[in-house]
């Protein structure tokens, strides 16, 4: 499922030094929004959650998994990834991020298989390092695709 969702269309790389955390989340979400998988309200909600609740979706070193409740405007299970060459602070410098995932789900359970696959990938420290160091979308795709 992971490889069906993370494609050349939903994976992006950006140099990143000019981006704020908010820009990074919005940029990562862009392909999902363009494809109609999520509405703009969903993107706004993810940003506003961070502003009100803090950087809690910094789930591990260098990794953010941005998401909101389905009712905020999710139309489909979807996932995107933006890799930034430079670390961007999620709210403050104790939360530096290079891998910006955006996740949407339409209910509480349908995406659990996806979460499981994603976690297996992200618990592999070597793969996370390779993803942080990768220079192209193709390279990122091949790391995800194992």
């Amino acid at each position, binding site marked *: 499922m992971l490889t069906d969702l993370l494609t050349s269309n939903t994976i992006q790389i950006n140099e990143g030094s000019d981006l704020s955390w908010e820009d990074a989340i919005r940029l990562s979400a862009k392909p999902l929004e363009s494809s109609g998988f999520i509405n703009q309200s969903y993107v706004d909600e993810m940003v506003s*959650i961070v502003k009100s*609740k*803090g*950087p*809690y*979706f*910094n*789930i*591990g*070193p260098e*990794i953010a*998994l941005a*998401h*909101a*409740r*389905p009712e905020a405007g999710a139309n489909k299970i979807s996932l995107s990834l933006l890799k930034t060459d430079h670390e961007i602070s999620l709210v403050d410098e104790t939360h530096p991020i290079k891998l910006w995932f955006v*996740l949407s*789900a339409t209910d*509480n359970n349908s*995406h*659990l298989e996806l*979460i*499981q696959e994603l*976690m297996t990938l*992200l*618990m592999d420290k070597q793969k996370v390092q390779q993803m942080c160091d990768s220079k192209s979308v193709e390279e990122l795709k091949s790391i995800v695709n194992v």
Partner: protein
Amino acid sequence: MKFLAVCQSGLGSSFMVQMNIQQILKDENVDADIDVSHSDVGSTSGDSADYFFVESTLGDVLGNVPAEKLILLKSLIDKDEIKEHVNTILDKEDIEHS
């Protein structure tokens, strides 16, 4: 006994923690009846479980949970960190594990 992984939305990260805890209990050969589930901050209260696992920045939001029941995690995908906490609880509760 009940362990509850909690995150803001109850959608993604808490489920990751739940799966990690379940795997650790299996690895540690724990026979005791321990229920592991996940939930969101809004529907969690101090009596929802015996121990609560939460990402550290959300600790304040769970103000109604007694501090000794609250496990604050720096990383949700670092199995070693979660394992250390789980083993501490198992020892404290006199639950047999390897």
